[in-house]
């Protein structure tokens, strides 16, 4: 195992434990871990098992999913500015969630929101496949993704625009910022299978993405099945991003910034970047979610706001570095 893998794994473990022991309930580290593991049936165990554990697991899953999907998308499109939201799945998942809030389904049944979001993601991925086709260049995939993102975004705005209920509108806006607060183990069970399946699909891309460094023609002539690679990428990304959006809302910048930051550490190899970026994404979400609880605990700071606040300056740094290289 390389030093980078060791470092990132250790970082994720530390942040996961920190996410478990940091919170408004003011438990000591030993108290909280004891309550989590042994379970005395008291309120401490309830806090640990029903509130902090699902939140930490979701942070791990969602962060890993976004990092992995971002690295896969950048590798496939051979573009460091690609983002897992590019194929339109997060936009259509968000539309499904927004509809469930607007129609009052989310209020009536807690599971309606993630399930409608998954339905939206499914519709999005089917549309992308119909528009872009299983074969063809990466450009058609980008165009199809942008078309669907734009359409889903327009419909989301339309729902907000026509919303007669200001409470629903503000709930929609807050949901779209992305958060891991008040999630339960049910959310974990919704997201886990999809994220695992998607991650397995995406991890098979490693060799193909490496070969794509030389272009689509050369990769195909070296025995890479581009049709299968494209389908695995679309379905894998749709599964992990759809599931993440369904349980956590739209969290930006992770899939964009994390692969970009870690690329130099894996000698720019797109295949090796997959797992590195998954670990890095998990670390970024866990750290951001800890920040949310530490900085303004009483104001319900949204996770997506923090990732954007952290991610945007990182991007400025990358621009600076790119310009220095270019000069």
């Amino acid at each position, binding site marked *: 195992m390389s030093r980078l893998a060791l470092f990132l794994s250790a970082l994720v473990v530390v942040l996961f434990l920190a996410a478990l022991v940091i919170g408004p309930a003011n438990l000591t580290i030993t108290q909280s871990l004891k309550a989590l593991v042994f379970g005395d049936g008291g309120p401490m165990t309830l806090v640990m098992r029903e509130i902090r554990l699902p939140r930490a697991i979701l942070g791990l899953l969602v962060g890993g999913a976004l990092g992995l999907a971002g690295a896969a998308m950048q590798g496939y499109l*051979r573009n460091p500015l690609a983002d897992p939201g590019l194929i339109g799945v997060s936009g259509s998942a968000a539309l499904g969630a927004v509809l469930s809030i607007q129609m009052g389904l989310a209020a009536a049944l807690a599971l309606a929101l993630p399930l409608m979001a998954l339905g939206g993601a499914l519709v999005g991925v089917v549309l992308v496949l119909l528009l872009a086709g299983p074969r063809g260049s990466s450009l058609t995939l980008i165009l199809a993704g942008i078309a669907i993102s734009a359409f889903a975004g327009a419909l989301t705005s339309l729902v907000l625009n026509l919303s007669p209920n200001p409470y629903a509108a503000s709930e929609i806006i807050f949901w779209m910022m992305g958060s891991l607060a008040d999630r339960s183990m049910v959310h974990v069970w919704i997201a886990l299978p999809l994220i695992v399946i998607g991650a397995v699909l995406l991890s098979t891309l490693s060799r193909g993405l490496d070969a794509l460094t*030389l272009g689509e023609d*050369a990769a195909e002539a070296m025995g890479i099945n581009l049709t299968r690679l494209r389908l695995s990428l679309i379905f894998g990304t749709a599964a992990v991003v759809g599931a993440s959006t369904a349980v956590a809302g739209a969290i930006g910048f992770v899939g964009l910034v994390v692969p970009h930051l870690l690329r130099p550490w894996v000698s720019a190899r797109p295949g090796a970047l997959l797992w590195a970026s998954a670990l890095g994404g998990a670390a970024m979400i866990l750290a951001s979610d800890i920040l949310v609880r530490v900085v303004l605990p009483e104001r319900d700071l949204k996770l997506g706001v923090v990732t954007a606040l952290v991610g945007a300056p990182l991007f400025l740094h990358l621009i600076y570095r790119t310009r220095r290289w270019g000069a």
Partner: protein
Amino acid sequence: MNLLSLTDFAVKRSGKQVLQSVNLDIQPGELVGLIGPNGAGKTTLMRAALGLIPAQGRSSLTAMAARARGKAAAWMPQSREIAWPVDVETLIRLGRTPHLGAGQKPTDADAAAVERAIARMGLEGYRHRIATQLSGGEQARVLIARSLAQEAPLLMADEPTAGLDPAHQIATMQTFATLARSGQSVLVSLHDLGLAARHCTRLVMLHSGGIAADGAPRDVLTPDLIRAAFGISAHLQETPDGIIFQPLEVLS
């Protein structure tokens, strides 16, 4: 045994018949130059033979499974893409892709093939340089080394000498000739007819949708065929050093 066999091969692109009735067999030990004016279908022929674009007729390569084809023929496209700032050795090692099973790590045999390719292209000093920061000609040499590392019996290269300085153009053609002498075969498209005349064991001239001539360089580079295909006149001389071919003027 033929390394490539095209029978009654034809390619249509966006409704236009680009190539038809192409029959071509390449035996071991040949260095075949594919020549023809712009748009004659050199790239199309090679890509279709590999199965990268649809075609009619039979190609011995498209009949194979994807990975078997990757072991049977290496392909160096004309567009010299290097998408990520990887180091030269990593890039050349990508040529071993068809030899690796799912999840398999490169073996000593793969490392040895990469070393041979680096040595053949004289890239020892470049090993740890970042490929995207090299000059265009250096990148071309690295990409040729990548296709050599594939160690397939047939190497197909599209304009591999474009953008190289004269020494590296000659060295590249000599590398191909060495491969051919060792029993591999090379099919290479070229615009430099002097280079083609001097180094290739055989030339295939594409013109108006098919093979206009196929044979030894001196039999293909005749004044009539050169005028018909390229619309130029040329000077050809057999010397003790080999054939010297120099295009002279555009004929109206």
